[in-house]
């Protein structure tokens, strides 16, 4: 599975999708879910929480391990994906649809500074070699 070109990425393996209302959805990448394996629990940040860029704000747990999810930019949490409470495996099955939380960025231009699909793939490749 390739990384969709309409998304932005972080070096810490989050994907970021800009929605039409100006918020962004955040999930973890195909590469990240593959490393972690079967997901069994997702802990999302509280709606309304103010986040700084690169702050630990969510946790995804697979059978094997727990991993932190980081805020890609500074902003405020506007929604969490409650479906993941009962179906955390959606992150394995459809990593680029299974968003974990949404946030309103403090500064929309911060999104532009994130990695594009090609730059993110270079990060993945460098970790594998």
């Amino acid at each position, binding site marked *: 599975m390739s990384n969709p070109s309409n998304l932005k990425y972080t070096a810490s393996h989050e994907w970021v999708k800009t929605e039409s209302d100006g918020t962004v959805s955040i999930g973890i990448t195909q590469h990240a879910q593959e490393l972690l394996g079967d997901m*069994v629990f997702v802990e999302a940040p509280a709606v309304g929480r103010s986040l700084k860029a690169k702050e630990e704000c969510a946790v995804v747990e697979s059978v094997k391990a727990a991993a932190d999810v980081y805020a890609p930019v500074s902003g405020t949490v506007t929604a969490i994906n409650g479906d993941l409470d009962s179906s955390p495996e959606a992150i394995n099955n459809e990593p680029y649809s299974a968003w974990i939380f949404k946030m309103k960025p403090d500064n929309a231009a911060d999104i532009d500074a994130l990695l594009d699909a090609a730059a993110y793939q270079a990060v993945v490749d460098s970790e594998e070699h």
Partner: protein
Amino acid sequence: MTTLKTTPLNAAHRAMGAKMVDFGGWDMPVNYGSQIDEHHQVRNDCGMFDVSHMRVVDMKGEGVRAFLRYLLANNADKLTLPGKALYSTMLLESGGVIDDLIVYFMNENWFRIVVNAGTADKDIAWMKKQASLHAPQLDITDHPELAMIAVQGPNARAKVWDALPGSRELTEGLIPFSAVEMGTMFIARTGYTGEDGFEIMIPAKAAPFFWATLAENGVKPIGLGARDTLRLEAGMNLYGQDMDESVGPLESGLAWTVDLKSERDFIGKAALLANPPASKLVGLVLLDRGVLRAHQTVHTAHGDGEITSGSYSPTLEKSIALARMPVNVAIGDTVQVNIRDKMLNAQVVKYPFARNGKAVISSS
């Protein structure tokens, strides 16, 4: 970078799409796809594991039994039928656990022992040192050239019989926890999953063909990830996690494997008699949402404890753990586990959590 050790099945794992990991210095398959699917595969049907990293040690000569009576915390005199196996710990003088192992009684001049991979060299050095003092006539030889394949699950024995001509006649009457030789192979009705099945030792050269034959007969490969959740549900200890040299068997849920009744002396006995256990191993089921993990702190009315093994149980669809707790903690108590600075509720239960395909958990 150090080179990882490989088993004779390494190429087969890679060909089957395994995700390989460094497992205590061994390049081993953690899963071939979904670890949870592999777990259910073993509970509901059967699967095969490469456990060739474990080490086979043969003790031969006159007086093996008498030596084992002294070397092990369980009593080798319980082994009366040829082929019968016994689970035991091997202790330091301090009562700390050097390793847990299975010993098979083949005949009065030959006992076979299977030890953990990570402790094998240490174990063999200890056995040889004790033998030099107490039974210098014994020949103690380990067999890294033997591969080991575990086939586990309700249909495991039937699948092995299909794959291995002649094995049915030889092993259909084999009682649980016993073994028989078949040519250069050694077939034991033992395992580490809580399911029926075999652990089969086979010369390294023959292992890839046998593995492929099992696969052709519909036996799915299972990685070490599912092996860990299966053994945890079955309430089986993992050396290095649930016990080690710093704790004794009585503090590790293994009192049933220690024979303190007979008059025989064994290494560690004096320490066990002199020091009543300061803690005990119990099961936990998480009542709140989250995942129990090793080393999380458990708060109780009787003091703090610590999780030694924790994961998600695919059979129970809840998180479960083994935890070392103050001795006064009781089955049925609700305790608090510190997970990322949140206090989550867990119930103390009697383990095993699941065996033979079903949940068997008990909170009373």
